[in-house]
């Protein structure tokens, strides 16, 4: 549904996006991560046929973005970084305006406007001027605009920023339900928990380049290595643990130790057998949690060197 091949964009010699090749299938969510200025917004703008690629190509639903920009724009729903709402209009007028621009029949337009405004809890405020809306309400209205024409591809830039937890959850539910409707979704976000929860795959951009692409688990493996396991003991042990060859002890406390098996989870039976055989009182074996945030930061550290620590408070 969404495909790019060597997609690049330069602004007066500065490459905002370089050789980006990726594919997002129907029913898939791809989270686009990266620091500020990594090229996420530029990518979204190229995919929505607003910016013309300097090099490479991109397709939405089979339509090339430079050859068929109007068709591409009718297939994508875009939540822009800046919501760009007309503050002197009411929510109803605003959505009706965009429904007419997207050439929706009046009945379908009325039905969809009602559906999304109700879904986001804005229906009762539909006659209020947008200028009186809170930041979160504006965000939800902008999202309603992006979804109004039933787009096959969704490009969402920070969809839950400025939202209260309840609204953010609602939006995440909406995004998940859109995946089940076979839409292809690109989600640009700095919220790594959200990315981990929603995304099927993650792409990390840095200085315009794609530096990592894979499922959250693949990315964690890539950035943090194979999973580690904590062995919790019933009583303290200070002698070296009797581990099979290939196992590494990463941390040892009197009542626990952290071990990295060579083949990950599959090696756990061997680990347990060895410890129990040597009479170690194992009460629990658990995976040390690896978050996407850890993986992302590790990757960034690898790319840019160690990040500076915060100055100590006096």
């Amino acid at each position, binding site marked *: 549904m969404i495909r790019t091949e060597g997609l690049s964009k330069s602004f007066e010699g500065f490459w905002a996006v370089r050789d980006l090749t990726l594919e997002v299938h129907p029913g898939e969510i791809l989270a686009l991560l990266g620091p500020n200025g990594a090229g996420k917004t530029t990518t979204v703008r190229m995919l929505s046929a*607003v910016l013309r690629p300097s090099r490479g190509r991109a397709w939405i639903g089979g339509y090339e973005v430079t050859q068929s920009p109007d068709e591409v724009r009718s297939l994508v729903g875009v939540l822009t970084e800046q919501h760009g709402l*007309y503050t002197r209009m009411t929510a109803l007028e605003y959505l009706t305006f965009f429904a*007419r*621009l*997207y050439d929706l029949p009046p009945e379908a337009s009325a039905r969809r406007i009602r559906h999304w405004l109700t879904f986001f809890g804005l229906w009762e405020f539909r006659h209020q001027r947008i200028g009186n809306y809170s930041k979160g309400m504006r965000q939800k209205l902008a999202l309603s*605009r992006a979804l109004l024409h039933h787009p*096959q591809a969704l490009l969402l830039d920070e969809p839950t920023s400025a939202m209260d937890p309840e609204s953010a959850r609602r939006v995440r539910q909406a995004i998940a339900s859109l995946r089940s409707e076979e839409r292809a979704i690109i989600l640009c976000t700095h919220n790594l928990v959200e990315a981990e929860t929603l995304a099927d795959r993650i792409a990390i951009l840095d200085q315009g380049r794609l530096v990592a692409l894979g499922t959250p688990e693949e990315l964690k493996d890539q950035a943090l290595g194979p999973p580690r396991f904590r062995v919790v003991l019933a009583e303290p042990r200070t002698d070296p643990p009797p581990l099979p060859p290939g196992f590494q002890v990463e941390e040892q406390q009197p009542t626990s130790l952290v071990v990295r098996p060579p083949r990950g989870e599959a090696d756990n039976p061997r680990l347990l057998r060895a410890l129990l055989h040597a009479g170690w009182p194992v009460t629990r074996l658990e995976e040390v949690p690896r978050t996407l945030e850890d993986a992302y930061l590790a990757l960034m550290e690898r790319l840019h060197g160690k990040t500076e620590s915060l100055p100590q408070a006096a």
Partner: protein
Amino acid sequence: MEKPKAYLKPHSPGATLSPARWLSRTRAWWRPVLVILHRELLDQSRDWRIVTPIVGFTLFFPFLMNFVARRMVGFVERFGAEIVAERFFPFLLLVVGFFPLSISLVIALESFAGERERNTIEPLLIAPIQDAQLYLGKLLSVLVLPLLASFLGILSYIGVLMWRLDWKPEPMTLAAVVVLTVTQGVLMVSAAVLMSTQATSVRAANLLATLIIVPIALLLQAESMFLFWRQYHVLWYIVLALLLTTALIVRVGLAYFNREALLNREMDVINLGTLWRLYRRAVVGEARNLREWYARAVWPEVRRLALPSLSVLALLLAAMGIGYATVARELASIDPHLLPQSIRDPDTYLQNLQRWLHASVLGGAGRLPLALFLHNMRALFLAWLLGVMSFGVVGLLVIMLPFGILGGAMAYMQFLNLTTPTEFFLGFVLPHGVAEVPALVLFGASLLRLGARWITPSRQRSLGEVWITSLGIWTRIFLGAVLPLMLLAAFLEAYLAPRVALWFLTR
């Protein structure tokens, strides 16, 4: 998967459509334009900063003008010059119509730049509408309210004049004023919307608006002059010129409308260094010395001007022909005795002419070539200035004017039996024209090309870049060909032309 709607252009080349299908496609094409128009009008009608001055101008100005008119009538009646007051009314009508229109300039200047500043432009640019639809939607929306206010103002002012002063406008005068008001409004708005698409901020657009306000102010003065003279037919020519200019401006606006630039143009700083380098590169090209410059920059450009030069030459000759025909016709229709002695009697005229030519040749001293050169430069500067403001067209008219006068002089000399047209051409035009005519032809052609470059679409470069580069290329021709030829022409005109003319008159 849902298929996207087909975005058909209303006039696909080679497509043969039935009238009904053509109408339906045309309506479909205009639909988004009307949607944008509707939204903009809704927005404007809710903005007190727009509504208040429009209402004020509409309601207040007719009465103010009526007050002025009554005072004026009272004043001129004391001197028995009621005719002055009557000539004044159409002018006030024009003023009443123009003031509400000035608001359109403010709205137009902020049409794109304002949306960009408020970040509302991106969702619009992402919508599946064509550039032309968005551009025209904005353009039309800016016009509607001010034009309505303008018409209301004119109507109420006429009502007040009829009621208080018992004055009724002649239908043709009224039509001229109304059409002029509309075309002026359309021209201002087109130019302002163009500036709004190219400006980085509303402030920058407002600063650029001087380029609209000054010519329109000059135009209003010219229009008022023709209204006082009662030369209403000239107003229609002005309408025609305004419509042509508007069409060209809209064409430029569409040609340079660039979604990418609208989103990404961030800097509001004039980089004089970059501008100078761009201009210099356009003037000098790759040349390293004067010889190379002539060979690589000037001569190829002169060759490129071959076709426009031929067109300009044809226009200059046509101007000469029109001048000749007009004066010959006038002279044939009037009683010669009505002409003053000094120009009616061939002998007196010849003596005067010879005296003047002698003075030119013998008393001209060394400063004459310089004076002639500077005079010609002033004329060329005026032509350039008007040409820049009108895509070359009005500048060309300035060059054509002296050729019209020459044609007239040719007819007059023939009327006095002093020279035949051929003799006049050989004796009075050719000696310095051998350098001046090619210079003027090249000047006119380069002006036309300058205008053509500005209206030619360029998706790769901004309008500013194209303007500067085109000016640079024009400078090549001016410095490399026009200026040397004009210098040569000034010397020929000072030292050779009067001698040849004297020889023709005295042989």
